[in-house]
């Protein structure tokens, strides 16, 4: 393994840097692996700060612009820190027809949250996502890994309160 100096970043601990290097080393020889590397690194840190993107680019021997271009293209990747819980509202057609718009605006109003934003206390991040394929449960909201079905606006409070 080539030893690389790690940049300083408040959200990335030394242990995280070591894990990140393992990911990069394991995938370096695999063509086209940059998306997988970014995914795994985001899972470690929670988001992709610019310093981390630079580090990945160096590690995979790609230009920084090439890696940044990939990050900005795919909606999975986030350049901003996320809240402790990610609330994803499905805005697929079935959920839309069944009224996710009202559910979404209830969350936005009550938690002072913009789409793509995070509450001040970093408790929740709100995202809208395209169809989750759980149309039978529409309208659907996913918090972290839990799928909540039939989320009418007045159920929102009770559901979100379960996540501290």
């Amino acid at each position, binding site marked *: 393994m080539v030893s690389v100096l790690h940049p300083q970043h408040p959200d990335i601990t030394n242990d995280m840097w070591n894990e990140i290097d393992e990911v990069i080393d394991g995938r370096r020889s695999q*063509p086209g692996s940059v998306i997988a590397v970014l*995914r795994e690194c985001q899972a470690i840190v929670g988001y992709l700060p610019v310093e981390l993107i630079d580090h990945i680019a160096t590690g995979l021997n790609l230009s920084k612009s090439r890696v940044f271009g990939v990050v900005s293209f795919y909606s999975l990747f986030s350049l901003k820190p996320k809240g402790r819980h990610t609330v994803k509202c499905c805005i697929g*057609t079935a*959920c839309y027809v069944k009224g996710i718009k009202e559910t979404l605006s209830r969350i936005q109003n009550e938690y002072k949250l913009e789409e793509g934003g995070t509450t001040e206390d970093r408790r929740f991040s709100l995202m809208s996502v395209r169809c989750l*394929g759980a*149309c039978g449960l529409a309208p659907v909201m996913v918090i972290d890994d839990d*799928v909540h079905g039939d989320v009418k*606006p*007045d159920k929102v409070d009770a559901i979100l309160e379960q996540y501290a």
Partner: protein
Amino acid sequence: MAKTTLEDLKRIKENTSARVESKNAKSLLICGGTGCHATGSIPVKEMLIEEIANRGLNDQYNIIETGCNGFCAMGPILVVHPDGVFYEKVSKKNIEEIVEKHLVNGEIVEKCLYKDPVSKKRIPLQDDIPFFAHQMPRVLRNKGLINPESIDEYIARDGYQGAHKALTGMPPEEIIEQVKISGMRGRGGAGFPTGVKWDFAGKSEGSVKYVLCNADEGDPGAFMDRSILEADPHAVIEGMIIAAKAINASQGYIYARTEYPLAIRRLQTAIDHAREYGLLGDDIFGSGFSFDIDIYQGAGAFVCGEETALMRSIEGKRGMPRPRPPFPAQKGLWEKPTILNNVETLANIPQIILNGGEWYAAVGTETSKGTKVFAVSGDVNNIGLVEVPMGTSLRTIIFDIGGGIPGKRKFKAVQLGGPSGGCIPEQHLDTPVDYEEIAKVGAIMGSGGVIVMDEDTCMVDMARFFMDFIQEESCGKCTPCREGTRRLLQILDKICDGRGKPEDLDALEELSAVIKDAALCGLGQTAPNPVLSTIRYFKDEYLAHINEKRCPAKRCVALLKFEIDPELCQQCGLCSKRCPAGAISWEKKKPAVIDKEKCTKCMTCFSVCRYDAIF
């Protein structure tokens, strides 16, 4: 385990078939699809295991977690064999009763049975429920029946026999010929004949070729690929092996949506088992043919469902389409000849090879053969997956199988083909599902999402919704799509906000025509369809928004006054109780009043008012 042979397949089938031909065996099939997991099927299963053990029934019943049953809105689903009694929305509370009454005493538990929305009668057997009775399961033949994490159960349902036949007894030309005879057309949406595609790739020069499976099911409202992967992952793997033999490829990739974690997990398990059995890897069935598959996870970009964009994405680049030709069959992934087929297409292949192309082509219409899986959702009673022969009418799908519209509301339109599709109104409901017929009425077959909308849906708002989707997912490479869809959205936003002008309709149509002609890939070329089809069939709604500043379906917030009609108000007070902002005052025997200062326009009152009194 050593290399699997035909004898092994037969032996495994013999040993396992007693379990899967479960009409005769005692099995408890609990649905383990994404939908049922979300409604709590895992704790129900654990409870069931515990209860069965308590009663000492372990030896008598097999408890199987199956893949998606397909009747997603009714989860958690439990089917009890022999007989096939269908229990819906089973909770932990019901388990004790089902075990005590049904398994011990042989009495059916009435209250957990499916209730027909029209006749209000309870129907005990799965096969008698109209949702299942009208279907013709081919690609879904194993759903809700086998354990998707058991390769033996797949083999017991004739699994890998098609691959054996193709690898040991059929030259590539013959495989391609059978697929051509079957009339199979790409189930991902475009409907290109699969056999022709394979033929091109087979004839392309090159020692390295690839078989790709498109499991990037991005169309909102389509979930058949997810269900197939969750319920029957080996069928897709077997289809890919046969495709690989047909074009002489040695490596395959499955490009799967990252939003489908369960499907990816089951697929990986299936690949591992297939490798263990020597059904993937070197010298499969001792035929000298080698092939392996890896899963590649997407990263959330709708355009990556387009074939050239998908290949760029696997290469680790921004997933942008490129002009064709050269077609992927000549220059695809890493510039090598490549075929890309959809999950549903590939899952059909093993049976086409096993039973012959003519068997497959025996059902369907002149130009569209076989069956198609539709994902029926929206304002319809029976939400779930429906597999019917091509040529079945939309009315049959929505009313006979789907059970019609809930409540007393009326049908308004059905949206077919995802964001590239169109909205079909009542007068065209007898259109048979067939690639050409659907196109004639202004929609496309697409991947098979059928979203039913009732009279409370605003069609202008729907067009705006799809355009919002498209312009956000447009990759930005070509100007017509990048700029054109944004302008379309701006005009639609304006109309929904009450700032529309009569000339906007012409502008929408003109812009749509240009985008259709000039966009680079399928995403852009079909992007105006939702706008054009809603203008075609629901022009009066556009005119109400533009001329009268009125939204007939009461969905466009900017056009609503948030006032209560004292004549219509029945003074029930429900709106006041539910208003999250405390903006509605109400006293007994007086109509409610909305304080506009406090109102956040959240629409809760509109959705709870049963008397249509708020406007």
